[in-house]
């Protein structure tokens, strides 16, 4: 074991921990004031609920001893056998518990990302069931396939450094599915969207960027050159994407603050699967293209009148898809010998593998999310009543208000 590596995994786990509530702040600024607390609460709830799910059985399902290349068994239930000694399959120089801790933060943030699809109308109690099922039935298997020892996509050679497929595609596609299946917000499309506080959204974006250094850098599971390369790429891609969005919105109208914040996040998403495999200039290209993709997908989504309220599909699903494919283009073994070369480095095979893993993530996330939504709706409506929606979720779901009574 290496204290430097352990120190870094401790820090990066802390950084990623911060990201889930930061998603809440990021989303919270975009909704109407009367749904602000409720929106933050959705993310905060993912933090507390999935922590317990993960410790009890989620980690075991995702990373436990392989069953048929499809899922882990339950032998690590309650973290039995997951101790201070390293698990050399996953990370040789840090305690197994450290690997578990870092992965926990990924399992937590993924359902939190989805919440942007149904803010301002989701019923809180059903939501808790939703994320429990979603994490167990969708995330845990997907993580096993891509990252778990014996997982079939891992065996296939799919590259996903920090979760483009596992995290961003699954959450973005689940969001699209939920937005299609659940009722829209009342008056959707007829009234202006009214962010209650762009300041709060900015604060969320700032903390997300900060946390993403741990997200992508920590995925090296060591304090080494690769971790630094990943962070340098991450930072560069985010900046390039933010500038791109700034220009796109500037040409269209004015350089938008919300747009720059969104652009930065989209760039961070795009680089996530690739950050440990590519050089810095390709990283900036990946960020730039990611911003363009998401920018136009948002407009497309508006035209389709789909109420994916905070554009999880456009920002995470599509930018994540681009990032996963771009890994197949730009990956190079000079950066990461444990990776592979992409198309531009003479190996078209990787792009194909990436494509397969993208398709798998789309199909799996869409299909299973539809199943869960239908199932839950049959049993207890996933959205609130019209009156509760009008009063706002803060009052109707939590009996509270974001700001004092006058």
């Amino acid at each position, binding site marked *: 074991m290496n204290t430097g590596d352990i120190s870094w995994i401790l820090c990066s786990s802390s950084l990623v921990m911060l990201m889930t509530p930061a998603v809440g702040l990021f989303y919270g600024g975009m909704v109407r004031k009367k749904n602000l607390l409720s929106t933050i609460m959705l993310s905060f709830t993912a933090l507390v609920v999935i922590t317990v799910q993960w410790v009890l059985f989620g980690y075991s399902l995702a990373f436990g001893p392989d069953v048929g290349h499809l899922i882990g068994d339950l032998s690590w239930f309650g973290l039995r056998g997951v101790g201070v000694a390293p698990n050399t399959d996953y990370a040789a120089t840090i305690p197994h518990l450290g690997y578990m801790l870092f992965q926990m933060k990924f399992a937590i943030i993924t359902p939190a990302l989805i919440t942007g699809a149904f803010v301002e109308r989701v019923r809180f109690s059903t939501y808790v069931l939703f994320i429990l099922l979603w994490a167990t039935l969708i995330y845990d298997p997907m993580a096993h396939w891509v990252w778990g020892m014996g997982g079939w996509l891992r065996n296939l050679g799919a590259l996903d450094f920090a979760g483009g497929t596992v995290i961003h595609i699954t959450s973005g596609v689940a969001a699209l599915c939920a937005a299609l299946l659940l009722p829209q917000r009342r008056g959707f499309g*007829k*009234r202006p969207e009214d962010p209650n506080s762009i300041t709060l959204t900015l604060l969320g974006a700032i903390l997300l960027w900060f946390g993403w250094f741990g997200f992508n850098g920590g995925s090296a599971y060591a304090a080494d050159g690769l971790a630094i390369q990943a962070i340098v790429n991450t930072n560069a891609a985010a900046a390039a994407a933010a500038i791109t969005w700034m220009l796109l919105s500037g040409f269209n109208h004015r350089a938008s603050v919300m747009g720059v914040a969104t652009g930065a996040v989209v760039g961070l998403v795009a680089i996530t699967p690739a950050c440990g495999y590519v050089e810095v200039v390709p990283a900036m290209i990946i960020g730039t293209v990611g911003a363009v993709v998401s920018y136009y997908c948002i407009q497309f989504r508006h035209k389709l009148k789909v109420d994916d309220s905070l554009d999880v599909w456009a920002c995470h699903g599509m930018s994540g898809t681009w990032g996963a494919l771009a890994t197949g283009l730009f990956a190079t073994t000079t950066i990461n010998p444990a990776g592979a070369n992409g198309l531009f480095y003479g190996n078209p095979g990787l792009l194909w593998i990436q494509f397969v893993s993208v398709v798998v993530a789309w199909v799996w996330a869409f299909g299973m999310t539809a199943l869960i939504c239908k199932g839950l709706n049959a049993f207890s409506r996933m959205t609130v009543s019209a009156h509760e929606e009008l009063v706002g979720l803060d009052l109707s779901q939590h009996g509270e208000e974001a700001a004092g009574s006058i």
Partner: protein
Amino acid sequence: MTTLKKIEAIVLEEQVDAIKQSLEAAGYVGMTVFPVKGRGSEGGIDLRWRATTYTVDFLPKVLVMIVVNEDVLNHVISLIVRSCQAPEFDPDPDHRSEHAQSWGKIFVSPVEQAISIRTALQRR
């Protein structure tokens, strides 16, 4: 000499845009909006302080104030009323709420002068 009237419509934030647009279309541009909290005829909603509970029954509303000439008063009021009655503002379309919540309230009161600071010309 025309008399002026002040219309104060207390509505949901979501309704403001509809009001604004229908008035604008009819040529009534000037308007001032206030963030308020209000309580009409409905009952209370329980709020909580950590582990204890108390009741608060004010909901966030918007007060839209429009000063108009008396001769168009009824027209403006009917525009407001109509634009607030879109089905998406129905507080209780599925008839599940125990509280009879209404759609908003309008008060009309007299105004004696309106002065534009730029010109300082008084219109009485």
